[in-house]
């Protein structure tokens, strides 16, 4: 054959994973490879907009009602106010159920698609393994684009727990509850794997490390001190892996003075319009300019103050680069982009690894944490002022941002993926793959 290697990206249906993969795919294309994307039908257009060919998995037969997302958010909004441990039953379990459903549903079409495409490597940026990828016999690379807690270790707090490092009692309580609630879902997932000839995974694990290679976004400044350090032959840290977007001109504010604060809670957070309304009312009383990502909900707002501009979508990395402060939900991409641009974060976590990132921001002095809804305007003002005035944090973050930018995570990721694509034989089981198997005591 001898043509350029085809690299099939299969990101989770979320903007974080999708755009992270876009950054790596652009670097691969610059190196002569042919990246293509496999995606859920609901994500069509995202990758072709960046010039990549898309292959869609068929949409499920059941058409969602017009109010699908509104129903989803009204059901879960109260849960986002709960402590991470109390979200296990209310949010985490139903989410895992749905994720397992997707994997089951995607299996046959994904297998057929991979047989047709015959890529030289598959890049999986997801939280669950699709047996079709292992069955296809194609080398695959895992991207760990969640917080580093996604890879378990004795010294690392449990994934999604938001716990401090070293909180043994908290850990025991969280683990026990997590396993009792998630256990049945996990058992169903392991049965599904078994049906397709894959060994079961240890409790709470839905995705194994790749025997070929694994890429982690986690930048050094957030890195955990692991009891069992990750084998550098199998794991590469990418220092954030931030993509380049079109430049962003800061719009003209009617009230011009003050530092620039960018506010985005991702597309999920944008649906919580009542919280954003409260934030905007508080911003009106603070001497700064605020750019607020409101998704498709601009009509939910009125009497927007002169120091606030609402937009449906922002080229986030370019906006963060011009901001003095980034208020976000702790999504891993958002947090990495703040670090990459040397900008402090105020994290108001909703769910999932947002809790882990918020805790880690405080532990590492890279940002502040604020409970998402339990605050008075004075608390919010005080936190914003503290973050903006923290010159020590600002200097440290600027220096770290320069290091991250010099590192070029997207290029390193592309090189590692190309090296895997050139391999023909599956490497012998070693390192963390073995570790996961050995620690599983069913």
């Amino acid at each position, binding site marked *: 054959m001898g043509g350029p290697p085809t690299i099939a990206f299969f990101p*989770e*249906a*979320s*903007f*974080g994973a999708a755009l992270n993969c876009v950054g790596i795919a652009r670097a691969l294309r610059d190196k002569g490879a042919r990246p293509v994307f496999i995606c*859920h*039908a*609901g*994500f*069509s*257009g*995202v990758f*072709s*907009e*960046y*010039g990549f060919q898309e292959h869609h998995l068929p*949409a499920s037969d*059941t*058409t*969602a*009602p*017009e109010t*699908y*997302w509104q129903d*989803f958010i009204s059901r879960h909004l109260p849960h986002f106010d709960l402590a991470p441990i109390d979200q296990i039953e209310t949010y985490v379990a*139903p*989410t895992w159920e*749905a*994720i397992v459903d*997707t994997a089951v549903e995607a299996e046959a079409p994904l297998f057929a698609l991979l047989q047709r495409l015959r890529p030289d490597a598959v890049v999986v940026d997801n939280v669950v393994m699709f047996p079709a990828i292992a069955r296809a016999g194609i080398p695959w690379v895992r991207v760990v684009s969640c917080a580093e807690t996604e890879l378990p270790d004795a010294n690392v707090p449990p994934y999604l727990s938001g716990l401090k490092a070293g909180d043994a009692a908290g850990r025991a309580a969280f683990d026990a509850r997590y396993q009792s609630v998630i256990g049945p879902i996990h058992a169903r997932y392991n049965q599904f794997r078994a049906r397709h000839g894959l060994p079961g995974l240890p409790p709470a694990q839905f995705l194994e490390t790749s025997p070929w290679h694994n890429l982690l976004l986690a930048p050094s400044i957030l890195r955990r001190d692991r009891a069992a350090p990750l084998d550098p032959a199998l794991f590469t840290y990418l220092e954030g892996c931030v993509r*380049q*977007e*079109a*430049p962003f*001109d800061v*719009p003209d504010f*009617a009230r011009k003075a003050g530092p620039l604060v960018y506010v985005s809670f991702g*597309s*999920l*957070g*944008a*649906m919580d319009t009542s919280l954003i309304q409260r934030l905007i009312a508080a911003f009106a009383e603070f001497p700064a300019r605020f750019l607020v990502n409101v*998704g*498709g909900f*601009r*009509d939910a*707002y*009125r*009497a*927007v*103050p*002169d120091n606030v*501009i*609402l937009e*449906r*979508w922002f*080229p986030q990395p370019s906006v963060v680069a011009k901001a003095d402060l980034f208020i976000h939900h702790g*999504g*891993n991409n958002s947090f990495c982009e703040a670090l990459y641009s040397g900008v402090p974060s105020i994290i108001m976590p909703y769910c999932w*690894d947002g809790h882990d990132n918020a805790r880690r921001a405080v532990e590492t002095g890279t940002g502040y944490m604020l409970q998402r809804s339990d605050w008075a305007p004075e608390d919010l003002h005080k936190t914003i002022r503290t973050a903006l005035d923290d010159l020590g944090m600002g200097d440290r973050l600027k220096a770290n941002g320069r290091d991250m930018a010099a590192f070029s995570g997207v290029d390193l990721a592309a090189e590692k993926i190309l090296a895997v694509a050139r391999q023909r034989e599956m490497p012998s089981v070693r390192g963390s793959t073995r570790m996961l198997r050995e620690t599983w005591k069913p």
Partner: protein
Amino acid sequence: METSERRTSTPRPRQNHLDLARRILDLVRDRALGPGAHLPEQLLASQCNVSRTPVRAALKLLADQGVAVHEPGRGYRLSDDLVGASALFPRLPGAAEEDLAGRIIRDRAARRLDEAITVGEVARRYQSDRRTVLKALGALADDGLVSRAPGQSWVFAHLPDSPESQSDSIEYRLVLEPAALVLPGFALDHDRSAALRRELVALLAEPDERLDGGRFGRLDLEFHMLIARGAANRYLSEALAAHHRLRELPGATARVSVVRLRQSIQEHLQIIDHMEVGQFAVAADLLRVHLRLSGSQRPRAANRGAPPLAATPRRGG
């Protein structure tokens, strides 16, 4: 779009002077006058059927924009460094009511103004007089952006700043724009086309980090207006021009990635190639492809940890 209107301290030009300045520019183009050409007041006054006083005011306006220069004792001439479309087709500052209309619609788009407003409220907010406010609202009403409600209030129409409106806009233009090109009598303005080509080529040569979306937006509008102006059927021409004015409103066009932005510039250039040699049917086919590719297909919502996207209902296939 954002730049000129905010300078509220400088007095706004009068509408008749602006109209006259535009007519003088038309004459310059019709007579293919080059950089440095003399602009005699008397001749312009008789050509435009007005006295010399308003012509002088219009020429001063052009001088303020850098299009003309004034030499004491010798009058006005075209500037020596006229280059690019922006020079021959400058964005003249708006009259006071135009400026106010722009600010009102921007503030509505930013959701600073409620759906219904009163003249008194607007006059207070913008420190303007009732007469100017009424003229501004009248201008917005002409474009279908506001309508008079019972009593003293005016009500805004639904602004075209949602994904649904953007999708409707693409569908509307798919019907009309190719038709404008293929109807007999399409007349391309070759000067505008050449100037636009130069600007598109210059933008395409910029590296990604300087590929300015705002600059692209202005050229995109200029490109599509070129087609609207060239249409032989005046109803078609007017409908398209009015629609493009709506597309100038904040939020009416979707932001695109640098990759799509480059593709879009290349598509514009290719269509211009065919229009310039009179291959309007080919240009129309390429325009259809360009518009279809420009249709935004972004999904509405999804997030890490959220249940996977179900078949979220979207419009436009």
